[in-house]
């Protein structure tokens, strides 16, 4: 067991970490575990929890209903991959595809649905088990608190969850952005300089903030809130916590705002580092 002297302090887990910890490549999972063993306490926010529920739990619930309608599990996977492939859910779909390598599941729709329900309940529970503490909910986002109720017939509970996770703008995001207007202006100013001007993920969010800096209220919509998510997280996290993420978009915002950051290596980097020397030469 590690003593406090050997630990790296407290980490703030950004959305990509729990998502990759659940469904990422086995090398990625192993890498995250190394960091988590070193950390004293794992923190997160209700905003991250909302993003996680939306990108993981809701995706699985949507997929469950598609699988119920489609004839075979493979049909469901094909349909979902064609129509709903985003950067966030492609990792989940890839993981489910590996599950279908087991012919017993691929050929048994009922068993496949049971597996999906296992993933829904498991992933829902996972975040709460992973996180030790939450930072103050400055955005006032209520969606992170939505649960899958026990006691209700399961599918009814899924339906309710899917409805409630949809944003109806009952938050105080506008208040947070107005309070941090100075920091937003700093991001705009510094964001135009090298190397931040080449950070694609950061620039997309920055462009939106630039266009709305006069009337920050317009950012309080579901779509805009999702687009500037990384910046909201960077604004919310206290300076004493190290942000742990896979998303390189955080590099610019954290550097400009003076937040501590650890960007975990990509799968390609991990594979390269493990390749025998003979293969590299």
């Amino acid at each position, binding site marked *: 067991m590690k003593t406090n002297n050997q630990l790296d302090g407290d980490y703030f887990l950004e959305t990509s970490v729990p998502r990759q910890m659940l469904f990422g490549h086995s090398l990625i999972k192993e890498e995250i575990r190394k960091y988590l063993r070193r950390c004293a306490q794992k923190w997160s926010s209700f905003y991250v929890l909302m993003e996680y529920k939306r990108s993981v739990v809701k995706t699985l619930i949507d997929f469950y209903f598609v699988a119920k309608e489609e004839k075979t599990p493979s049909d469901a996977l094909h349909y979902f991959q064609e129509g709903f492939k985003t950067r966030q859910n492609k*990792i989940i779909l890839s993981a*489910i595809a*590996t599950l279908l390598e087991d012919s017993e599941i691929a050929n048994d729709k009922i068993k496949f649905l049971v597996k999906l329900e296992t993933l829904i*309940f498991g992933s829902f529970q996972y975040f709460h*088990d992973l996180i030790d503490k939450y930072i103050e909910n400055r955005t006032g986002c209520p969606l992170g608190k939505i649960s899958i109720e026990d006691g209700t017939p399961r599918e009814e509970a899924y339906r309710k969850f899917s409805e409630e996770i949809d944003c109806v703008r009952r938050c105080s995001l506008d208040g947070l952005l107005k309070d941090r207007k100075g920091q937003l202006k700093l991001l705009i100013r510094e964001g135009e300089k090298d190397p931040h001007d080449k950070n694609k993920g950061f620039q997309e969010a920055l462009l939106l903030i630039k266009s709305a800096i006069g009337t920050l209220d317009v950012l309080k919509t579901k779509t805009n809130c999702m687009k500037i998510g990384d910046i909201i997280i960077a604004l919310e996290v206290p300076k004493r916590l190290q942000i742990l993420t896979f998303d390189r978009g955080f590099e610019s915002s954290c550097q400009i705002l003076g937040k501590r950051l650890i960007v975990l290596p*990509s799968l*390609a980097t991990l594979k390269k580092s493990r390749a025998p020397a003979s293969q590299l030469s």
Partner: protein
Amino acid sequence: MVPQMQSPVTTGVDPLQDFADSMTAFKPYLASLKQPSQEKEDRYSEFLYKGLTPQILEKGNGASQVIDVTASRYAEKPSRQYAELVFQRNMKEIPSLLEQLKANLQNPEGAKFMQWFREKLHRVWEVADALPKEKVLFLSVLEEAVRAKKWRDLAAGQVQVLEQVIKQTENGTLNLAGVLSTLHHNFIDIYPSASIDETDENE
């Protein structure tokens, strides 16, 4: 006075016995008469002997259609009580297997205990249709906890955790959320792993 018909009321005595007895003289003659040949083949006694389920040959429109009774029998949903019994019996037997597995993680002996553990889970899957959802999900979690894992890949602590959650679920002191929490806290991965990386833009 009208004479009353007396019927014998003695139990076990056939009223026609006297008549049958009187026919004994004709028995050799009756035995010589040929029985009509039976249309139906007695296949059931053979299958009972072999412990198999017979196939019914159904004739219609000149074509024979074979219906496999075995398939239909297994397609029937088992009763809830039977399913619970199978669940409980197997869950009671698994901890001792895991105990032996734990002691043999570093040698070939462990493989068979792992295999028998998987077989027990498989037996419960066969009646899963009749089990409550909570138990089916529990079974699914156990299966995922050892999916694609060799016995030698497991740590003694992980096997111990599996043993504990099974015992506690079986005696009713742990619910599904508790099982999931225990596995999460002990880094027992029950989730499938992707073959790609979400951070790779080229994927």
